[in-house]
């Protein structure tokens, strides 16, 4: 049992949990993830580690309420417990002094990006950060990110804050010599970033989030095509060279269980699982 010691709402439907898990906190590194199962009937879902406090023995993750499991998770309160958390999983990010680094965090993945930015700064990099979301209300960690960044930009899909879309990146890259780009966020966003950085030959690292079950290399559901080869994101990744990734294949595989996911979410809400009493 893993106890939730703190809970915060960062934006509508985006929640932060800090959980007591001292052994995971001891070993966690930026870029790694955990898999949790809420109760014995639950499914196993992966979430990226967004922070850890080795002294307090806690791990932090931030999630977006998109389906049954994340909505159910969002109902848990401080003091409640999660049945099982496995982690840290996946390979840690490569953190060293690359020089001038461009970090782009989109949506809920702004949270783990903050952890990366911290680590990159500690390693001596100059970090330019871009955070993005669909609309301005979904942005969070602006102040924290700004404080750590050499330069800081905001983008929204609808232009309600900062730049509209990621088109401005091209100019930004032309004006600055970046040695590395790191992108974390929705697959379409990472794909766009890679299309922009590729002609400039900037090594671009992306975090792939295919559907996962075991997270330890046993089921193959997380298979992705990278450089024409089959890779398992949970053990070979989750970070890969974005210029080699088959994003369309990934998007297709992420949608695999859409009808079942909708059914599960709908039934749960109908049966009052969401706490609305079946209304």
């Amino acid at each position, binding site marked *: 049992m893993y106890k939730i010691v703190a809970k915060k709402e960062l934006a509508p439907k985006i929640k932060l949990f800090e959980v007591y898990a001292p052994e995971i906190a001891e070993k966690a590194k930026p870029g790694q993830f955990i898999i949790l199962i809420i109760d014995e009937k639950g499914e*196993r879902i992966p979430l990226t580690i967004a922070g850890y406090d080795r002294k307090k023995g806690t791990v932090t993750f931030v999630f977006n309420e998109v389906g049954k499991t994340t909505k159910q998770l969002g109902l848990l309160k401080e003091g409640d417990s999660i049945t*099982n958390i496995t*982690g840290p999983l996946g390979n840690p990010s490569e953190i060293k002094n690359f020089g001038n680094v461009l970090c782009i965090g989109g949506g809920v993945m702004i949270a783990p990006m903050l952890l990366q930015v911290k680590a990159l700064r500690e390693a001596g990099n100059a970090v330019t950060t871009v955070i993005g979301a669909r609309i301005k209300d979904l942005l969070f960690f602006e102040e924290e990110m700004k404080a750590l960044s050499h330069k800081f930009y905001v983008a929204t899909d609808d232009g309600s804050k900062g730049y509209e879309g990621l088109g401005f990146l091209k100019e930004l890259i032309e004006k600055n010599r970046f040695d590395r780009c790191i992108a974390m966020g929705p697959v379409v966003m990472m794909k766009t970033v890679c299309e922009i950085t590729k002609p400039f030959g900037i090594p671009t690292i992306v975090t792939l989030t295919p559907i996962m079950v075991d997270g330890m290399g046993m089921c193959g559901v997380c298979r992705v095509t990278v450089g024409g080869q089959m890779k398992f994101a949970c053990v070979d990744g989750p970070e890969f060279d974005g210029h080699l990734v088959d994003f369309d294949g990934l998007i*297709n595989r992420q949608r695999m269980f859409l009808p*079942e*996911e909708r059914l599960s979410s709908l039934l749960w809400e109908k049966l009052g699982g969401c706490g609305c009493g079946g209304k």
Partner: protein
Amino acid sequence: MAENKPTPKVKKKAVPMPKQKPEVRRRNFNEVALGYTEEQAIEEASRCLQCPKPQCVPGCPVEIDIPAFIKLIREGKFDEAVKKIKEKNSLPAICGRVCPQEEQCQMNCVLGKAGDPINIGRLERFVADWERQKGVTIPEKAPATGKKVAIIGAGPAGLTAAADLAKLGHEVVIFEALHLPGGVLVYGIPEFRLPKSIVQAEVDYIKKLGVELRLGYLIGRIHTIPELLKEEGFDAVFIGTGAGLPQFLGVPGENLGGIYSANEFLIRVNLMKSYAFPEYDTPIRIGRHVVVIGGGNVAMDSARSALRLGAEEVCIVYRRSREEMPARKEEIENAEEEGIICKFLANPTRFIGDEKGWVKQMECICMELGSPDESGRRRPVPVKGSEFIMDVDTVIVAIGRTPNPIIQRTTEGLAVTKWGTIVVDEDGRTSLEGVYAGGDIVTGEATVISAMGASKKAAKAIHEYLMNKK
């Protein structure tokens, strides 16, 4: 005439195993074989000749004293029969169900020459079930030695080593990466062949021996083996991480929706109980036409599970012929009785998807058998121009599994073969001091009983190592 001679009457026919009827069981996940009654068990046991030099014993990888336990059954001393078996095998309810007996203990039984061999596995299962119903007694443990052993993996290898070491008085902690213990016994072999309550009973027994289970610990990521030995206070480590890395065909279209590795399919169905979706959260989509690629036990289990999930038609596609199929004969028969179709001498060459990225068709090529390969089986070769197309909604790829690689990647100095298996001597010692290994991680995909046999040997070696260590 021979009939006048007073020869002892040997019953040639085995007592048949009561089973669920095929038309009923094909749509439920309850156990297929129902088990002997006391009378049936005694009757079957009475057929045994009690051979002075029994041929059955060397066929058993852990050398159970088979005639002795059968004699005890015949005399109705079930309690003592279990004790006899447990001298060698701590998981009889499981082995009695899943051992390939026809290739092991039963293969050499003298009665098999002129009739049916003794159903040794079914008798083993009978007494184990009898004991479980009555309540298992916990054996006495040796006094505490003050030594600590870490076991990695809670499959049959890990569970067996843990039990043996705990009985010898060592403090034992099992680290298991999944959220439930049992290894393939819970995530692979389906409920209808091995009810999960039986695995749970074995795990409870091991807990009662004082073994601590830590679930959700992927060793190599959370602690490495050197850390377990140097920082976490363990005196020895046993690796029983199994062969769980799925193989794919490597043909175009394999990443389409609806194509599962057998491991994914079985993990969803067994470990995550997606047959009870949406009560359980993990989804599975099955469709009407299911094709399973492969010819082993894993293919049979996948096909029979798919049928039980409601598929209209399940077809096993295998690149050799029936004679070469590695699955147990009993399971092939069970599958066919349930209505599963086998298509031999065919191999997939590509998958074709619909506009939503879901698999729609599978192209195969016909095969013919050429000369025998290293394994002694005739090598299948494609017949030029013989491609044909099948309509499919779901494909399950069951063409083999290789060792889990995380430990090997994260343990410096651990000797590994080019197949990724861990190198050990005959007592299970690896190239690192105090580190032992056994089961599928050493042999590659094998059997429950061979994993247990290897881990028993390793447990013995670990005990000697610990007792001689300062």
